[in-house]
């Protein structure tokens, strides 16, 4: 397996608080990696490393090496950050469409990055909505406000929005935690389809979900990556006793 993302000895501090401790990981390409662990253990912080979203927070200090496609993403010029962010899409916990039409939500990433060709945009919007399994539901109301969609549809719209700029990697921070079971199932199905083309990192609190959708699982505790392995190994045969007690505690 080719590693898409590599971190080596990454430490992250919020002012004086250390949120990530010496994290080293190799995440294989075109797979789904689940990140699990109790609240506040640093999963979201870890996720935000890869599109340099942590840069936006005051007083963050990061050390160690973070590579995507063998390029250190913290050594690039600042003008390349936008390019990095196009390569790494992100989906959030709560559906957060922009106050625009369904069409414009998906077109947003193209427009802000300088694409004006309306035919190209229309094609790309359609393709992204199809990839996000939303096209059939919205093709007749593309001009309607995105807020008119249901929560589950909104979340798939957000995924379509991320897909439109053709990323390689998609970061998902508890993407289904605010949704009902049926919408959750649709999202999980979608994730399964997407991994053909994308490297997906997903944070989840739901052990069953991690077991269902992911190929690999990393377990975080207090900022440390305790264990990283194939998902079936983590859930059937964890090497670390902390992983085991977390998983068993959650399962029953």
């Amino acid at each position, binding site marked *: 397996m080719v590693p898409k993302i590599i971190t080596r000895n990454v430490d992250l501090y919020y002012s004086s608080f250390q949120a990530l401790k010496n994290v080293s990981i190799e995440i294989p390409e075109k797979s789904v990696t689940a990140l699990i662990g109790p609240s506040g253990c640093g999963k979201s912080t870890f996720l935000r490393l890869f599109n340099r979203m942590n840069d936006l927070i005051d007083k963050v200090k990061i050390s160690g090496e973070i590579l995507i496609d063998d390029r250190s993403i913290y050594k690039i010029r600042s*003008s*390349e950050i*936008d*390019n990095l962010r*196009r390569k790494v899409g992100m989906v959030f916990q709560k559906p957060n469409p922009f106050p625009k039409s369904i069409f414009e939500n998906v077109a947003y990433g*193209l427009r*802000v*990055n*300088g*694409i004006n060709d309306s035919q*190209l945009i229309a094609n*790309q919007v359609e393709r992204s909505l199809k990839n996000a399994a939303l096209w059939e539901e919205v093709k007749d109301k593309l001009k309607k406000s995105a807020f008119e969609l249901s929560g589950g549809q909104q979340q798939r719209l957000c995924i379509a929005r991320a897909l439109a*700029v*053709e990323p390689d990697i998609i970061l998902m921070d508890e993407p289904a935690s605010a949704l009902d079971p049926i919408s959750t199932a649709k999202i999980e199905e979608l994730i399964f389809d997407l991994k053909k083309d994308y490297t997906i990192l997903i944070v989840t609190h739901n052990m069953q979900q991690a077991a269902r959708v992911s190929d690999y699982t990393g377990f975080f505790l207090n900022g440390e990556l305790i264990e990283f392995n194939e998902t079936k190994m983590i859930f059937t045969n964890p090497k670390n006793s902390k992983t085991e007690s977390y998983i068993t505690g959650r399962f029953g």
Partner: protein
Amino acid sequence: MITFPENADLKKKWTQIVFFWTARILSFGVILVLITILYFITSKGFEVISWDFLTENPKDGMNAGGIFPAIIGTLYLIIGSMIIAFPIGVLAGIYVNEYARNGIAKRIIQIMTNNLSGIPSIVFGLFGMALFVNYLNFGASIIAGSLTLALLSLPLIIRTTEESLKAVDNTFRHASYGLGASKLYTIRKVVLPIAFPNIITGLILSIGRVSGETAPILFTAAAYFLPRLPQSLTDQCMALPYHLYVISTSGTDLDKARPMAYGTALVLVMIVLLVNGLAGLLRNYFARKVKMK
């Protein structure tokens, strides 16, 4: 596979730099206006203000002398209005935050208080004239002016009280109930003492507002010129803001009265600065106290 135009990121960057600076410059423009006003009035007023200016009566058709009666008048109006508004406002705030459990009652009070705070001050003037001056027959007087100003400052006092009470953690209340204390006792002995410094900021801000209001006292209290200090609550009084209005627009000799006007304006501005400073200090103190828990 789409390709993004290569210059797009550079264009974004420059647009951002240009607009961020525009926003910065416009924002500092706002602050510059404030500084200009303060500097202008302070520098001009400073030449005029002296002990005599503050303690003498106006002379020569208010073109010379001091503003003592206006200071005293404003002081009377402040004291009068606060004696009326502060207790009612605080009690109303207590009612809204501690008692009104019923959603509709609370909502009505909040809407009405909100409405009251939006009413233009000249309308308070009209109302004060109709009710206090004419209907209740107080005539234009300190008492009529104080009542009018009291009504105007109620919403501010109610709102700050409500917010200060809201900031008091519920654990204090529960602890007190746990010891068998009644609701009123809890409010009096536990909640109010914690919230008090912040409630006082409401009082101080109201004093700032009341001291500068002109329109409400135009017809209810303010006198163009009084040769002596008011003797009773039913007398008219001079007041700083009205005095400034008069000597800057309709005095006997506007040019000669200008220095007097600068001095009066500076006194008003100093009251505002004092009030804001004091309120800021109290707020910080309160924030620390609530955090301590």
